[in-house]
C-alpha cells in the first residue's frame, strides 16, 4: 500500500503536499509513482478512489459529500479528521462548512 496502514494520512499528506506522486489509471486500477522513492504502488477500490480524489484539489462539495458517505460505508479511515486537516493546511477548500464534514 502507498499509505502506512497505521498512520495512513501522515504519509498521504506529505506525498500529496509535496507533489511527489504521479498517478495513472489503468482500467479500474490506479498506479501511483512516488518520485522521491522511485516506488510504484497499485491501488484499487477505496484507496484508489480516495487518493485520486484528493489529488484533484480543491474538492468540490459533491466530492466532500461522497467522502462523507464513504466514511459510513466501507472505508476504515477517519475521514472527518482527514478532511479537517486537509482544509486547515490549505490543501482543500470545503466551500460549505455546514454541508457535513466541517461539523464532522
Amino acid at each position, binding site marked *: 500500500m502507498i499509505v502506512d496502514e497505521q498512520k495512513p494520512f501522515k504519509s498521504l499528506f506529505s506525498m500529496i503536499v509535496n507533489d511527489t506522486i504521479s498517478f*495513472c489509471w*489503468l*482500467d479500474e*486500477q490506479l*498506479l501511483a*509513482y512516488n*518520485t522521491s522513492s522511485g516506488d*510504484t504502488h497499485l*491501488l484499487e477500490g477505496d484507496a484508489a478512489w480516495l487518493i485520486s480524489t484528493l489529488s484533484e484539489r480543491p474538492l468540490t462539495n459533491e466530492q466532500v459529500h461522497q467522502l462523507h458517505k464513504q466514511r459510513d460505508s466501507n472505508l476504515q479511515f477517519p475521514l472527518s479528521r482527514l478532511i479537517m486537516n486537509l482544509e486547515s493546511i490549505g490543501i482543500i477548500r470545503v466551500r460549505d462548512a455546514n454541508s457535513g464534514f466541517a461539523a464532522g
Partner: protein
Amino acid sequence: MRIADLQQDELQQTLCQEGIWLSVFPFLFHIKSNELAVATGISQLYADYPVAFQGDYADFHITIKPPAGVRRFWRPQIQFYLDRHRPFKPLPRNQSYAFLEWGMNWCVANHMHRYLILHTAVVEKNGKALLLPGASGAGKSTLCAGLVARGWRLLSDELALIEPESGRLIAFPRPISLKNESVGVLNAFAPEFLIGPIVNDTQKGSVAHAKPMAESVHSACNNALADWIVFPQYVDGSDAKLEPMAGGTAFMQLQEQAFNYQLHGKRGFEVLTGLVKRSDCYSFEYSSLEEGVSLLESHLLGEPLAVASL
C-alpha cells in the same frame, strides 16, 4: 560480409587472434575466443549476421578463454571477460558457448540504459508486437520459438528494448534459449529449426540455442509498437487458457521483469504505463505448444484454430 560467408577454420582462426566484430542489431560485439565450441556456435547460430574482421569501435569487447592457473589441467574451466573485467565466476569448459550467450545478455541488460529493458520475449506479426514477459522457466522462450515457427518475426527472446522517447520496441534478435524438455518440444513442433548442441548440467539444467530465422535478422532495424502483453506460464497438463488481465496488475508484473526501471525514474513510469495502455493484457496457461500457439493466434489475430486444438 556475413558469418555464413566464412569457412569454419577461418572464423576460428580470427576469433583466436584479432577477434570478430559481430553486428547484432542494434549493438556491435567484439568477440575473441580460442574455444572451438564458441566458433562452432557462432558459425551455426549467427550465420545470417553481418561480421567484420576489423573495427574501430564496439559496444562490448568480450573474450572467452580458460582462466590462468593449474586448475585448468584437472578441471577445465572457461572465463568470460568484458574488457579486462571478469563479472562472473568461471564455468565448466563445456559451457563456453552458453556462457557467451548469457554474457551478451548480461552486457546489454546492465549497460544499455538508454533503453528501458524488460526480461521479455518479443515477436511481431502484421506490424503488431506481442510481449511475452516471464521469469525463467515460465515457458516464454518455448512459446516465442513456436510463434516464430508460425511466421512471427523475432525481435528478442530475452530482452525487450524500449526506446523511451518513442515507446517503440527495438529488435535485438538472437539465438533462442531453450532449456530441458523445451528442446525436444520445439524439435517436434518445428523440425526446421536449427538447434545447436545441448549442454547438460548447467545451472539452468540442459540448455541449447535455436538459430533465429534469417528474415528476423535481416529486418532487425524495423522496430515495432506493442499491441499485446501476454504473461505465459507453463502448467503441466493444463489446457491452453487465455484470460484478460487488468492494466494495473499487468504493469506491476511487468515492472518486476524490468532490469532498469528504477534508473529511468518518472520517465520509466510514463513509458511503462504507456506501453500497458496501448496493449491488451492477458495471463496465459499452456502445456501443449501446438495448442498454445493455435489459441494465441486464433485470439490475437482472429485466425481459425488449428484442427488439432479444437
